[in-house]
């Protein structure tokens, strides 16, 4: 194939999602000529996603063309290295996006910070419980940067995404109404917290009785009209449901399309090029300097785009896969434990207790992906784990996400799956149920990793990424304990019935769990256990930055997007303040 070589740009950013849009904005603000390449199609949120047509569960939740098109590219999956990995032929467990705006275009809007403890989990847990407290095969490690250093960048992201909430810790002073266990904030949230729904109020009452301190979860759907850091106007959320998996018609949910790209499009030194599928990061003959990227455009032409700086800003899978396809960094080998690319892939643990009432009725269709009442006492370092025997924690919440009729109508345990009894049960319970949800951390383990599949290939003939992952007994033990706590909360609500989901023995690719896949190109202080340094700069190729969920060394309990956005602000600042004045290794 002949390759067309284009004129160089200062920086090429691969992906236009939460990371790519912010990195593009910040680098363009620094005066660089920035090109953003996106594999998905162009979107005009003003015209493509309008009422009433966005209120369509079938189109957007079941058959969405804003999710990744697996006919061109998927991953392969197996629980362990003894199995043959098989392709994920249909979407299930997670829903990566494929359009301008990326996965964040259809996120739910839970915009939490990780706890200070989460960034230093290896040293803090070892300090408190001894080094043998971690499972022997656990490869969890410190991030190499502390919460204190990250705090200004969380603050920056929250003022781009208009995050709502009530501070629970302002400069070390505990505040009422917020999460008392969060890390210190330098100032209040940019927007006031969501209003608790009747379901949330019931959860809060039960949780308070049991000694917890409930608060409204931080949310990136506007609680009032908000003019953000980039001078883009976001509108107040109307709580019409159809939120997560959907694109908001009101521009109320902050995402790349609504919060960042409108400001970027006005810049002469920025170009967004959709339908360009990057397949490789190119390096010079030394392999120590990136020269740009190669992509395949919509017409199938191979194009080389030279650039001074390359930023990989895609979903965790593609950041890792592009490094492997480009031969940058040593691939991880689970046999020897050596190598880094693909190491420390992880996910998150989820659980649900369904609670049913006979004497209460709710309006479950009113709400949004981000509306929830939460507790954080079971997370981080708050609980003493010495007797519990597991590493990690969870936050518990009661969401009012907008219950859509195809997928959100749980029935009590023992109800037949179909037929007259089922019909009676859904009619009775749809408006009389709420959920107590567990969002748990997941450590990284030696045997869970990403590499290239030896058999299956994508539409371009390139190897698919292979995931080897299963639930570890550490997380199963944690989940069992969390279920006991959630059942206590459920009982305190005095329901007619309740039941907990079963603890999964094996990880399955089938049911939706969360789009919170992380790792594979993790950050750290040691090149033998990390792909990028504390500035998200490749240890091997200093003008290559790999930014996103791929950089998490393990997964804390909170949704990852707040931290992914923060990392984009952090990495962009590092490039501007340290790299540009003095190109080369920053550490």
């Amino acid at each position, binding site marked *: 194939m002949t390759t067309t070589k284009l004129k160089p740009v200062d920086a090429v950013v691969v992906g236009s999602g939460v990371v790519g849009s912010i990195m593009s904005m910040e680098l363009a603000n620094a005066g660089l000529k920035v090109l953003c390449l996106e594999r998905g199609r162009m979107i005009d949120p003003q015209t493509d996603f309008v009422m009433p047509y966005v209120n369509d569960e079938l189109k957007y939740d079941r058959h969405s063309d804003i999710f990744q098109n697996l*006919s061109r590219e998927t991953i392969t999956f197996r629980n362990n290295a003894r199995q043959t990995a098989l392709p994920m032929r249909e979407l299930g467990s997670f829903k990566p996006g494929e359009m301008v705006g990326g996965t964040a275009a259809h996120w739910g809007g839970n915009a939490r910070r990780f706890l200070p403890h989460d960034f230093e989990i290896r040293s803090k847990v070892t300090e408190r419980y001894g080094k043998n407290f971690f499972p022997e095969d656990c490869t969890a490690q410190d991030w190499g940067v502390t919460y204190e250093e990250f705090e200004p960048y969380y603050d920056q992201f929250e003022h781009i995404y208009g995050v709502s909430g009530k501070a629970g810790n302002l400069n070390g002073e505990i505040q009422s109404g917020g999460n008392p266990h969060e890390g210190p904030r330098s100032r209040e949230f940019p927007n006031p917290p969501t209003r608790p729904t009747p379901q949330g109020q019931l959860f809060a009452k039960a949780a308070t009785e049991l000694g917890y301190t409930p608060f409204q979860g931080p949310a990136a759907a506007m609680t009032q009209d908000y003019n953000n850091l980039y001078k883009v106007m976001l509108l107040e959320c109307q709580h019409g449901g159809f939120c997560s998996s959907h694109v908001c018609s009101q521009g109320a949910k902050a995402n790349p399309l609504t919060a960042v790209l409108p400001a970027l499009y006005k810049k002469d030194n920025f170009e967004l090029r959709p339908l360009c599928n990057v397949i490789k990061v190119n390096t010079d003959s030394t392999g120590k300097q990136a020269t740009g990227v190669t992509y395949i455009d919509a017409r199938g032409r191979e194009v080389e785009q030279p650039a001074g700086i390359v930023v990989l800003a895609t979903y965790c899978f593609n950041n890792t896969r592009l490094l492997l396809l480009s031969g940058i960094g040593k691939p991880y080998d689970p046999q020897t434990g050596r190598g880094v690319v693909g190491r420390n892939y992880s996910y998150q643990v989820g659980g649900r207790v369904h609670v049913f009432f006979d004497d209460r009725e709710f309006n479950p269709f009113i709400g949004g992906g981000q509306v929830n009442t939460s507790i954080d006492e079971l997370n981080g370092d708050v609980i003493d784990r010495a007797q519990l025997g597991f590493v990690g924690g969870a936050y518990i919440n009661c969401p009012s996400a907008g219950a859509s009729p195809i997928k959100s109508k749980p029935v009590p345990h023992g109800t037949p799956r179909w037929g007259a009894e089922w019909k009676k049960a859904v009619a009775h319970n749809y408006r009389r149920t709420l959920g107590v949800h567990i969002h748990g951390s997941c450590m990284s383990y030696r045997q869970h990793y990403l590499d290239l599949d030896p058999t299956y290939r994508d539409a371009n003939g390139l190897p698919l990424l292979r995931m080897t992952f299963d639930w570890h007994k550490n997380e199963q033990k944690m989940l069992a304990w969390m279920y006991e706590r959630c059942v206590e909360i459920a009982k305190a609500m005095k329901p007619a019935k309740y039941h907990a989901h079963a603890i999964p023995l094996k990880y399955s690719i089938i049911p939706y769990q969360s789009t919170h896949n992380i790792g594979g190109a993790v950050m750290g202080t040691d090149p033998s256990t990390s792909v990028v340094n504390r500035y998200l700069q490749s240890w091997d190729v200093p003008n290559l930055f790999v930014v996103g969920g791929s950089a998490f060394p393990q997964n804390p309990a909170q949704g990852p997007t707040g931290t992914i956005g923060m990392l984009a602000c952090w990495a962009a600042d590092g490039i501007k303040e340290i790299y540009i004045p003095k190109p080369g290794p920053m550490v």
Partner: protein
Amino acid sequence: MAESALLHAYGYLIQPEVRFLDAAVERLIPTDDLGPGGRDAGVTCYIDRHLCSAWGTHGRNYRSGPWLEGVPEQGFQSRLTPQEIYRIGIQEINAFCRARYEQFFENLPAPRQDEVLKALEQDKVELPSLSSKLFFDLLWRNTEEGYFADPMYGGNRGKVGWKLLGFPGVASGAYNAHLDNPAPYRAEPVSILDIQLKQAQVDAQGFAKHIMLKQDGGK
């Protein structure tokens, strides 16, 4: 009316399949005093339209070999498309019913139909070409979709699925004020189809204008 004739136009399904599906979806969601069942809700029509879409040939699924069975945790691994699963599955289930009960599925008495559906669900019927559970799971997933998706896709006729739940359909601009209000919000459901046919009103933002129902469910 031309429109009602279109409700019985089938783009993929053939007549034996329509008869099978009308009978099966009516057992999965039966007509009772709560309202119409799957047949009168148009679930068969929904399934047909759905099979005519890109989904019917798994247009967005990964479809390259080698095709291996794998373990259940690895998910859908059949080389058959939904179109093929329905065509082959219905033919083979009818052959099973004729061999065992000397009747097509749709002519069996209701309790017998339930028995057959349960056996399919539990993978207890040995079909020559596919797992009976694979067929059942697909049928049940599509039946639920057809009963509860917007009526513009051919099912949920008369919004019977939404009335059953008390789901008001397209959101109202009044929801924001109701977010923390414990009073039950009861409205006549509004579909996208209603709005397209100008049988329901929208406000300036495109939110539905709901007609509220009395607390006992009447207008």
